[in-house]
């Protein structure tokens, strides 16, 4: 037997598994449109049904498929946000940076995205922002076709109206 201090107490166990991922139907429709520079939500085919961006396959409130597509604006409202002070693993962006829950005009649910070209300390709930797109030749099936959102010169949205703006935004 070995000496006590030689007894093994820890081992490293690499577990690496390979998968072939296929995106679902609803996300694929969304991402295919996004590759063409269009932000589209989906909703179940009923009038006034909520619009989901990004769609995940169902309207979670009803459990029904989101068969209908609705183009939404690339202008959005800050529903809430956090200023992140730690780096994201495998992401070049340096802290501190703002990750915001944004609701696009015409959509009824928020997605998270980066905010930039802003003073972090001045970001606020209800603030108006707009997408800053990558050059068209870089567009892919990805939400980061939008590099980030930046503040725009529009009045803040009242809190009870966040998530309820039409696709035309404040210019109703």
């Amino acid at each position, binding site marked *: 037997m070995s000496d006590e201090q030689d007894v093994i107490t820890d081992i490293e166990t690499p577990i690496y*598994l390979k998968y072939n991922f296929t995106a679902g*139907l609803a996300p694929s429709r969304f991402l295919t449109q996004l590759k063409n520079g269009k932000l589209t939500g989906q909703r179940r085919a009923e009038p006034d049904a909520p619009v989901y961006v990004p769609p995940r396959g169902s309207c979670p409130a009803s459990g029904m498929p989101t068969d209908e597509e609705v183009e939404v604006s690339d202008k959005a409202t800050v529903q809430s946000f956090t200023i992140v002070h730690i780096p994201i693993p495998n992401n070049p962006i340096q802290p501190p940076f703002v990750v915001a829950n944004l609701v696009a005009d015409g959509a009824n649910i928020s997605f998270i995205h980066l905010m930039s070209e802003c003073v972090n300390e001045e970001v606020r709930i209800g603030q108006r922002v707009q997408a800053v797109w990558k050059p068209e030749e870089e567009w892919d099936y990805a939400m980061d076709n939008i590099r980030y959102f930046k503040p725009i010169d529009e009045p803040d949205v009242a809190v009870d109206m966040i998530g309820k703006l039409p696709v035309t935004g404040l210019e109703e």
Partner: protein
Amino acid sequence: MREICVVAYSQSDCKSNAGMANEVELIMPQLQAVYKQVGITSAQDVDFVCSGSCDYLQGAAFAFVAGVDALGAVPPIKESHVEMDAAWALYESVLKIRMGQADSALIYGFAKSSPGELPIVLSQQLDPYYLATQWVDTISLAAMQARLMLEQGLITEGDMAAVVADSRRKALQNPQAQLSGETSTEALLNEPHYVSPLRRSDCCPVSDGAAAMIICTVDKAKEWGVPYARITGIDHRIETHNLGMRDLTDSVSTRQAAARAGVADGPVDVAEVYAPFSHQQIILQRALDLGDDTDINPSGGVLAGNLMMASGVSRIGEVFRRIVAGEAGRGVAHATSGPCLQHNMVTVLEGA
């Protein structure tokens, strides 16, 4: 104890690759189908929901959270999840109904196994120091089990091929089956070995899909006015994880569960057993003491299509279907989990 019954069951086609359908998209049609069978519109109309799934099949944590998006859980519902086959979600639901906290329950299981290399993924179910680190795949473990039986004279390769031929033939009647057809024992035996002594045909295929079921009290079934099959016995037992300490030619835990579920208390007209490998069907047949009077795996069983995390509950569903169709009066369904039939559940169903 309250009488509980199965009133609805639906299973998707078993597909080798569900392609462009994510988990929610796989689940929704099955839920709609079972709602329709009992005349309800959503999960709001049952008292409890429980699901079964496994994150590692498709390689993403919290797979079941996406499943909740299929339920229409607004307002919120009573809901739970097992990281197991949905047969165990059914077991949890049975307890909820027995204790009076629910009169009805929706159960579903789903899997998209095709994105990964399933026999290797499942190697990580093994003990994490001695076996998982060797990446012993599940097919090889089953092959060692089959060889033990062959060399002890408990079965022949012909017996195994006969199980496969029977499965393929019966699956012709099952529109959800992935593999079906007329074949012969001889033709199967002419195929080369895959992981010897197993041939490819001895192993279940990898399938994508989902299944759903509704169970309830007999009183509720009568209120809904739908045909039902009573669950008159249900039990599950697990065995040691050390394969070297089990008698792999038998399934002790299946025998234990069968005794407690009361399999022997009446004739068994039909049985659906979850045997991912042909020789395991013979082990289970013997452990359940099923004779020639029992129609075994009329659906073709999982050799015709194996929805991981849903196949167990599907066995119960297939027995239910035959009872309410009047094809059988009493039946037995079996579900399994773990390598070489480590963990087994036995359910006895009887007609109204």
